[in-house]
């Protein structure tokens, strides 16, 4: 028997490879975007610190920028100095 495919319709789902399901700063899911964005995805990614805690990139940047003192630029979860994981 021969089958001829006339048409097909593919559906895919995606999710970030993050341990937590939501960002600890804005409390929205990583699959959703931070409160300042409208479209989830590559434009609003999670980022990791060397301590392995993850937040929306925009959320952690807002937190770090709100701390004038560089010593206070810490991970919101564990208070270690925040450094982006390479």
């Amino acid at each position, binding site marked *: 028997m021969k089958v001829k495919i006339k048409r097909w319709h593919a559906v895919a789902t995606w999710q970030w490879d993050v341990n937590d399901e939501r960002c*600890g*700063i804005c409390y929205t899911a990583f699959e959703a975007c931070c409160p300042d964005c409208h479209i989830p995805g590559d434009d609003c990614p999670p980022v990791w610190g060397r301590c392995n805690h993850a937040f929306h990139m925009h959320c952690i940047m807002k937190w770090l920028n709100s701390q004038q003192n560089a010593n206070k630029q810490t991970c*919101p979860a564990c*208070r270690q100095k925040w450094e982006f994981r390479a």
Partner: protein
Amino acid sequence: MSTAARRRLMRDLKRLQSDPPQGVQGAPLDNNIMTWQAVIFGPDDTPWEGGTFKLLLEFTEDYPNKAPAVRFVTKMFHPNIYNDGQICLDILQNQWSPIYDVSAILTSIQSLLCDPNPASPANSEASRLYQDNRREYNRRVKEVVEQSWIADDDDDEDGDEEGEEEAGAEKEKGGAAGGGGQA
């Protein structure tokens, strides 16, 4: 208007309702999610038992990157609470972190009641009595517990009623608080 701070506060409210912590309640005013009223119930088996202590939390658009301004509107007697109701608590000042929410703030303040830090006194008399004369300290605490019932007789803190009236009552009480002076 929907801003990051307001959306976060909506999530805080949902969490407070779906997973309510023991002995604390809080809700925004009917017409303003940036200002919340809260009640902390005095923990059982402590001198604070039975007290209903009301607080006001004022958030800015910088929340959760900045802590809210929190103060008791009920008169307090506690080593780390000023006469005007302001609270000396590290997580509300330099140890603030944006992962805290309203629920975490209220439970932290609740645990401060029974676990004061006499090393950073905001009320020197309370601090001194706490260290030197615990019996008298407990008596003074029980006094504010009893006052907390009288001061609250014009409303009950059961739900989402009469935001405006309550807000008015808060202002009056805020103005009346702060007598007594520190030693």
